[in-house]
């Protein structure tokens, strides 16, 4: 770590705040939830107190289909922190959700070599604590949905 980086950034257990609680709790309920602006209708991610399009602070949480397409990905061949040591190699991907937002996530359930740009994926959840489950994605064929 360099100066200015906090230990929290490396913790595998998500930091749940009042703002992000519905997102993490959604995971426990098996739903990928993001915020939709009540004023202009923009579905946003990252999670924020205001809409980056119209600056309205009025929003509601919405459950998405959990379907998307792999925009791009990378394979971590070495761990940057020891809590990830047993997981390498693992895939971090940008998934373009069917509803629009780009979501940074993992693609799991298949070997890294089987991940492709343009691949259809659907959400799965990894329970990380009593109050948080992490949305990850898996290729649609593997997930058995549809």
């Amino acid at each position, binding site marked *: *770590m*360099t*100066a*200015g*980086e906090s230990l*929290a*950034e*490396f*913790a*595998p257990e*998500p*930091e749940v*705040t009042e*703002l*992000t609680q519905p*997102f993490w709790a959604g995971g426990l309920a098996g739903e990928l939830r993001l915020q939709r602006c009540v004023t202009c209708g923009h579905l*946003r*991610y*990252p*999670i*924020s107190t205001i809409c*980056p399009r119209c600056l309205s602070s009025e929003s509601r949480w919405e459950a998405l289909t959990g379907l998307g397409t792999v*925009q*791009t*990905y*990378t*394979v*971590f*061949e*070495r*761990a*940057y*922190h020891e809590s*990830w040591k047993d*997981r390498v*190699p*693992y895939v*971090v991907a*940008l998934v*373009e959700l069917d509803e629009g*937002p*780009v*979501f*940074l*996530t*993992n693609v799991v359930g298949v070997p*890294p070599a089987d991940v*492709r*740009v*343009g691949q259809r994926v659907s959400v799965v959840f990894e329970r*990380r604590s009593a109050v948080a489950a*992490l949305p*990850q994605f898996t290729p649609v064929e593997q997930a058995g949905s549809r």
Partner: protein
Amino acid sequence: MTASVQASIAGVGASRQGKLPGESDLSLATQALQAALDDAGLAKDDIDGLLTMPGTTSPDPAKHYLRLGEHLGINPKVSGSLSMGGATAGVLVQQAALAVGAGMADVVACVFGDAARTGGSRFSAASGSNVSWGNWGMYGNAANSALGARRHMALYGTTSEQLGWVAVNGRRNAARNPAAVMREPITLADHQASRMIVDPLHLLDCCLISDGGVAVIVTSAERAAEARHGGVRILGMGQGHTLQTLERKDWWYLPHQQDCISRAYRMAGLSPADIDIAQLYDNFTISVLFWLEHAGFCEPGESGPFVEGGKRIALDGELPVNTAGGNLSESYMQGWLHIVEGVRQLRGDCGERQCARAETCLVTGRGMTLNTSSCLILGAS
């Protein structure tokens, strides 16, 4: 409206580079500033502007200007610190040029120093606001660029070998640069055999981590003309920023870089064909490919074939790139040395790595989670 820049670079300087135990961000910045003053033929008391970039190991980085000013005994008319990663050097030189053009200061020193190597900086932080990307194991600067590299490969058929030519080119040039940290020649096979860091980026796709300092002195064109080695003109300046990251679907391709360079071309009244040399910010090899497309040296998707074989971007090629070795092989000074090398090439100071055509040079920088970008178009006097 026609914009024009009323400023030039009167001098550049750098400390030793590499692993320098016992040095600090302040001692390295000081050595660089002394070298730049000597290069310009100016004295410390000529400086009336001090703009700084804190190092990755600097305490209280927002007040870095204060710490460095006290250390150097400078009480300037214009000052401040800025942290925009690899875009900072270009932005500070732009701010210096604007201050000189507005008559707020006459001689502005832009200074950087960092003990990143001995200080243990790993550039491995997680991005993300409110929800950290660390939750998904997304750490470090290399992975951001790996995402872009992977998509470029998928869309355009770009290969790891093509990225390798950027690394080979940088090392080949560094071998002709006595001040470079990594001068041992490498081959494409070495690049391919180097261990994978974040697929598709190998170790030799990644920049160094270095201790060092760099300074650039900006003054009026008239005053710079009297500098010891003459001045180098700033013909064009640009910035572009995609501060939203995930909210922008094309963030991976860094479209702000294209905007940034277009703005500088417009200011300079130049086009890609007018550029003799390019110093392109190379935190990772893929960055050079993006810049080549964004600067209009080739069409989108064609940068892989453009660099393949390494001839076009060589010192005697049609567009020499990163002539001192860049972040990959010279030293990782977050783009500051790219400006230094641009100035030296245009003054004809580069010895056995001097390019034959050296009237114009594009210098680019980019930082943070790929969000910021800046560029300068420099011209020989």
